[in-house]
C-alpha cells in the first residue's frame, strides 16, 4: 500500500493530520487547475480551498480503486465550472474583475537566456489570457491534458464526458486558441512593422 492510500484510509477514519498530508501533496495540482480555470490568484486560492473542503466532507464517497488525484481534480473542475457559470449569470463583467491584476509566472533567474525566457513567458501569459475565452468545460479539458498530462479516458472520467466528446472538445479548443492567437498576432505584427517604418509612410 503506498503512502497516499494510507493517508486516504486514515483520513477516512477521521485523521485530520493524514488529510493535511494529502492537501500538501496535491495543493499544486488543484491550485493550478483552479488558477488556469478562473484566471486570478485570489479566486484560485478560494476555489482550491473549497475543493479540499468538499473532498474532506465527501471522503466517505471516495472509491479507492480510482486515482485520488483524478477524484480531486474532478471536484475542482466541477466547482470551477459552476463558479464560472454563476459568474456569467451575475451582473458583474469579467473585465472589471480582471483589472485587479492577473499574476503570472515569475521569470526563472537561472535561465541561460533571459531574453528568450522573457519571450516565452510573454507567450505563456498570452495563452493564459486566451484560455479564459474558451468554454468552461473545454478549458478544463485543455488544462487536464496540457498541465496534468491526463489521457482522454482520464479527462472523460473527471468531467463525466465520453472519450469522443473529450477528443472533439480538445480539437475545438485548439482550433479556437490558434484562431485567437492568429487574430491577436496580426495587429501586433502590424504595430511592430510600423515602428520601423519611415514617418513618410
Amino acid at each position, binding site marked *: 500500500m503506498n503512502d497516499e492510500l494510507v493517508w486516504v484510509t486514515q483520513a477516512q477514519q477521521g485523521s485530520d493530520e493524514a488529510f493535511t498530508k494529502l492537501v500538501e501533496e496535491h495543493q499544486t495540482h488543484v*491550485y493550478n487547475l483552479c488558477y488556469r480555470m478562473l484566471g486570478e490568484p485570489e479566486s484560485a486560492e478560494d476555489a482550491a480551498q473549497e475543493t479540499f473542503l468538499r473532498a474532506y466532507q465527501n471522503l466517505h464517497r471516495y472509491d479507492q480503486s480510482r486515482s485520488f488525484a483524478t477524484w480531486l481534480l474532478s471536484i475542482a473542475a466541477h466547482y470551477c465550472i459552476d463558479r464560472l457559470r454563476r459568474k456569467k449569470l451575475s451582473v458583474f463583467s469579467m473585465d472589471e474583475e480582471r483589472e485587479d491584476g492577473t499574476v503570472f509566472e515569475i521569470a526563472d533567474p537561472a535561465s541561460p537566456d533571459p531574453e528568450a525566457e522573457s519571450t516565452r513567458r510573454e507567450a505563456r501569459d498570452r495563452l493564459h489570457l486566451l484560455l479564459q475565452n474558451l468554454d468552461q468545460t473545454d478549458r478544463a479539458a485543455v488544462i487536464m491534458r496540457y498541465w496534468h498530462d491526463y489521457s482522454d479516458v482520464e479527462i472523460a472520467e473527471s468531467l463525466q464526458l465520453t472519450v469522443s466528446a473529450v477528443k472533439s472538445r480538445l480539437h475545438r479548443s485548439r482550433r479556437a486558441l490558434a484562431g485567437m492567437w492568429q487574430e491577436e498576432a496580426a495587429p501586433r505584427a502590424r504595430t511592430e512593422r510600423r515602428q520601423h517604418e519611415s514617418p513618410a509612410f
Partner: protein
Amino acid sequence: MNHQPFESWLLNEAALNAQQQRELDSHLRSCAYCAALTKTEKVLRGMKMALPAPGFASRFQTRLMVEKAADRQRKFLGSIFFTISGLALMLWLASPYLAVFFASPASWIAALVEVGVFLVTTLQASVEAGAVIFDVMGRFMPPFAWMVLVSSIAGVSLLWSVSIWRFVRVPQGV
C-alpha cells in the same frame, strides 16, 4: 496538398515520416493558421504549474476548523429547534387528553374506548371515501393521468426521504 490534412496531422499529433514532415514544414511557412496551431501547441506544452502562496495547507486547516465550528453550531441549533418543535407539537396534540389523564379510572376507560371507536370509524370512513373517489375518478381520469399522479406522489416521497437523510447524516471525517 490542401490545408485539411495538415490540420488533422497537427490536431491528432500524428507520427510523420520524413517526407510528410518536410511537406508540413513547407505548409507551415505559408499557412498562418497552422503556424498558430503549432505555436499554441508548443506554448501549451511549455506552460508551467502555478503555485499557491506559501502556507496553503495551514490556511486550509484554519478554514476547516471554522467550517467545523459552524457545522457544529448549525447542528446544535437544528437539534434545539427540532426538540422544541417536537415537544410543542406533542403538547398541542396531547392537550385534550391531559384533563382525562388526571380523571378517575372509569373516565380513562371511557376515553380509551372513545378514542378506539373514533380511530376505527375514521379508518372505515377513509376507506369508503377512498373507494368512492377512486370509483368516480376512475371514470374520468385516463390511465396515464393515474401514472402521473402515482409517480408524482412517489417522487415527492423520495424527495422527502432524501431531504431527511441528508439532514441527519453525519459525513465521515467531520
